[in-house]
């Protein structure tokens, strides 16, 4: 990202969008004339000046670090870049993903290279989709003191404590729904006074829901039977032997299914 925001770099490697856009060139010149606004951040305690509009990840790279641990998808899906920080004049600990959190002046930050968390081994075929699964694999959830620190730590703004409470009640569907968007960054678990590994509890509930509680598709069963019975074999053989011209003709004559709600 740091590479992409540098205007100098953008000029050296013009993307096609820049090649012909006169207006864009003018704006670029304006930007270059105006010095970039910089802020000071403390990366693991060391001060660096970085562009004010950077994400934390962009700032770390701008400062010169080659990230090994602490970057994955860089778009907020993988949870590799859990970060804790404090702000000047504020006693609170904040949490966020380095890839989607913007820097602030005076921010004091550290990435967490890995979250120590247990993941019990289990056979999903031998579990039941109810409270017994949690009792067996994650008995520590019953120690939850309902302090809500996990919820405050969640960079996705999920109701983490609510889903742990739902797990304590054995409500698999609710745990699934509330933890659906979890990125497994582990910030909840690192803050939890009851030492719960929330995200693995959520993951277990989702798998149990998909495996046992989600309604089954009758259409899917019919299609699988058709395929097994060889219903499409002949048509496949025909299609696979077709010349490019024959395929083209067939392809451009396809009817398109209307979209309906």
């Amino acid at each position, binding site marked *: 990202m*740091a*590479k*992409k925001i540098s*205007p100098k*770099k953008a000029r050296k490697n013009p*993307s*096609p*969008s820049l090649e012909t*856009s006169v*207006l*864009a060139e003018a*704006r*670029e010149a304006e*930007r270059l004339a105006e010095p970039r606004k910089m802020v000071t951040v403390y990366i693991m305690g060391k001060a660096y000046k970085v562009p004010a*509009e*950077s994400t934390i990840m962009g700032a770390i*790279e701008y400062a010169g670090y080659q990230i*090994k*641990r602490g970057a*994955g*998808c860089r*778009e*907020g*899906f*993988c949870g*590799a870049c859990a970060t804790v920080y404090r702000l000047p004049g504020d006693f609170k600990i904040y949490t966020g993903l380095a890839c989607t959190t*913007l820097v602030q002046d005076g921010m004091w930050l550290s990435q967490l290279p890995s979250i120590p968390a247990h*993941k019990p*081994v289990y*056979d*999903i075929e031998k579990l039941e989709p109810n409270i017994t699964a949690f009792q067996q694999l994650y008995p520590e959830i019953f120690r939850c003191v309902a302090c809500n620190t996990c919820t405050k730590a969640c960079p996705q*703004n999920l109701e983490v404590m609510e889903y742990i409470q739902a797990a304590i009640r054995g409500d698999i569907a609710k745990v699934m729904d509330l933890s*659906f*968007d979890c990125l497994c960054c582990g910030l909840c678990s690192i803050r939890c006074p009851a030492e719960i590994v929330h995200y693995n509890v959520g993951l277990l509930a*989702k*798998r*149990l829901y*998909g*495996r046992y509680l*989600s309604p089954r*598709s009758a*259409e*899917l069963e019919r*299609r*699988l039977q058709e*395929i097994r019975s060889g219903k*499409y074999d002949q048509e*496949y053989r025909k*299609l*696979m032997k077709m010349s490019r011209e024959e*395929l083209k003709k067939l*392809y*451009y004559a*396809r*009817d*398109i*299914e*209307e*979209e309906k*709600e």
Partner: protein
Amino acid sequence: MYPEYMRPSLKKVEETRPRRFELQKSGKPVFPPMSAQEREEVLKRFHPDYRPDALRQVRIGPNKGELLTREVADMLEAHSRIDPSQFNLDRPDFETDILIIGGGGAGCAAAIIALKHGAKSIISTKLRLGDANSMMSQGGMQAAVTPQDSPTRHYLDAIGGGHFDNKPELVRALTEDGPEVVKWLEELGVIWDKRPDGNNYVLHGGGTSRQRMHSCRDYTGAIIMRTLMDEVRNHPEEILILEFMPTVELILDNKGRCAGGILYNLETEEYYVVKAKATIIATGGYGRLHIRGFDTTNHYGATGDGLIMAYRAGAKLLYMDSVQYHPTGAVFPEQIAGFLITEKIRGAGGQPVNRHGELFVFPKEPRDVESAAFIRECLERKNGIETPSGRVGVWLDSPLIDMLHGEGYVAKNFPAMYRQFIRYGIDITKEPMLTYPSLHYQNGGIEINARCETNIPGLYVAGEASGGVHGRNRLMGNSVLDYNVFGRRAGQYAAEYAKRVRLGRLTLNHVLEYEKELKKAGIRTTRIAPILLPLYTPEIVRQRQLTARYEGNLR
């Protein structure tokens, strides 16, 4: 928040919205789909692959003389990271049935199925398990399940989308295994979006003639990937996961069969020898090569490592002249430039419109055609919207979606997209997103057959690293299906092969031979590949890093 100068254009989008809403509600195409000739023309004139300097001849290796994407040819014409004379191959550090290179969707699926067929495996992965493009797919997975659809219709859609260059046996495997994959994943615990009757909720994607995109809200990849990872981790005795331990070269035996690899511990910088009866490359794609300077939707480790390892060992590549640009990459705000905006947005009724709020393309053309049309609209017709940092894009009108499906639909079905933009003060249920094509997918790769075999015995490839499944253009939802179908197949066939093979003496001679070939061709370069990690260090910092060597991040 959009800057003030964009307001007049946003106002026009608002003004034309009611008319476009009526059009969308009719169920008919909102803009005439292109004919074969129109598609060809817009591709030739505007797709980045057709730019005069997009390709160059590769001078060495199995594809010698062929025109390849310039950045790929550069990567292939590079030195190895290792000196083969420093390794004692007679004393491997690890021995296993199957070495799986890559811990994304294909690698995990392969490990699970290989185990079902009695094979133990080692997963060597550069970052963490699951740090892969598989984790990031939002929209969904294609599979022909509904009564009005069929696997053969899916075949025709895929092969037409790929410009009829796809290998037929691979497209058959892809489309025929599709429904089985839907079931397999559900039994592992993947939560498909459902209709009230229990059947899966399916949508259109670009280039599909039937609605067949299965999804898990807009976290489809995250749900599938985490389910597969969790299942892999449920077998610690049989599947050894080595994180931050990428494979950097393949090992062959004296009969030319693949026999494992050399692994590199990214943190301690040690190298290890892994002897394996069979090897599966599942290293994914190459978005982080930033081809033609494009932003990318890809994860941090997508540097095409499998391509160069396999190529050095003598594997043939297919369609490495073809790059997929996803039509809707984000261009504003700057912090999310290049990020993927799922095709499901268009699947659910979102429309691309220009600065005047007018439609200019059928929203669901195949990706390369749609991308080329976006570029034409911006560069030739000058109907794009410029961003403060000098990028340009067209609007993707998302507020239509809640109008079509009811309020709350976006919040429920596009939580990831909603989050991505609301952080920057843009509410996608009220305002459109600004988009431009972003480097998304490696259409070609290492050539395989329907058993995932390459021209090197014992070397299997699955997922984005392979070539031939998608021809020269992949349709949306076929990559999630691809890594499942071919990950499973690779796991099965590699396990069966591992049972019968008796390896000979291990060798790295092919690495030495490749170096000789480089020299003979007069290629003088400091490039090293696999690249492993992209470099985003600013120039001014690099000038002060006097003792660091950054070609391929080697110290």
